[in-house]
């Protein structure tokens, strides 16, 4: 039996917040399988080229990777605080927390930029003369590195854009303590982006 909220929603054409959240979770599920395909590829090639993947991870800057992990974890905190604030009708705090989240996402992207340019500067990029002279496992490792962190980076960028829109909506009171499902759903997306990095970090930086 559908709950009273949904029944009322049906009758009065009003927003069904729980339904909106369910829809968002299902979208997150699809994202999990999008990245899941890449994790499958990673696991197969890692299995076939363990030594090269070990060597590849050693090439990574553990410092930058750890820093980026903490940056994203912190951005998840500020995101959660932003929603908690709007629940308490604290528009100012919610806006500041959203602002910090966006800023941290940009810090992440800047770090990524430095990382990538450092690698590219050393001749490590897909189809480079240097990379093609390396063992096959190394070529695959870096191919996967650019693909997976690249796709993740695209999601961070999209997240930053979405959160900027949310900041505008909070300022304009479109999102408020009575109606914040849009912000909540944006938060869910942002936390998933964080979770994906939580897995990418050890796979590319830590595993030996």
């Amino acid at each position, binding site marked *: 039996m559908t709950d009273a909220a949904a029944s009322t929603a049906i009758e009065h054409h009003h927003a069904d917040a729980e339904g909106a959240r369910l829809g968002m979770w299902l979208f997150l599920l699809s994202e999990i399988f999008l990245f899941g395909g890449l994790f499958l590829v990673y696991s197969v090639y890692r299995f076939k080229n363990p030594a090269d993947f070990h060597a590849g991870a050693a090439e990574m800057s553990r410092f930058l990777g*750890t820093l980026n992990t903490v940056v994203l974890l912190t951005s998840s905190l500020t995101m959660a605080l932003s929603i908690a604030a709007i629940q308490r009708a604290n528009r100012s705090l919610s806006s500041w927390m959203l602002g910090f989240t966006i800023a941290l996402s940009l810090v992440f992207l800047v770090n990524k930029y430095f990382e990538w340019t450092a690698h590219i500067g050393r001749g490590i990029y897909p189809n480079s003369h240097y990379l093609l002279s390396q063992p096959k496992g190394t070529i695959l490792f870096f191919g996967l590195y650019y693909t997976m962190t690249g796709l993740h980076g695209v999601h961070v960028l999209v997240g930053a854009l979405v959160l900027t829109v949310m900041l505008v909506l909070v300022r304009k009171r479109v999102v408020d303590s009575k109606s914040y499902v849009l912000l909540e759903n944006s938060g869910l997306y942002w936390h998933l982006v964080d*979770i994906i990095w939580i897995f990418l970090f050890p796979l590319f930086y830590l595993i030996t």
Partner: protein
Amino acid sequence: MNHESAEAHVTPYRTYVYVWISLVVLTGVTVTVASLNLGLASILVALAIAGTKSTIVLAQFMHLKNERGVFKILIPLAVLILVVFIGLTFTDVAFR
């Protein structure tokens, strides 16, 4: 009229900060363990810690612990299916 139903639960700010602290601590743990070179076990430990961090993010930041049943089943279901996809692929890759 907007019905927030199960989401009426309001978490204290403090809780989120504690969650963040535990996540950062776990990050430190995983980085430290990585330099110990445990061989095959290192990948399992790293994934276990990543799984723990993710569960914390899901339960606390993403409010899964306050949601009703159908929401809570989605992530375990996804993990199970992914494990099956990867596992079945490995029946090929590992036995060629």
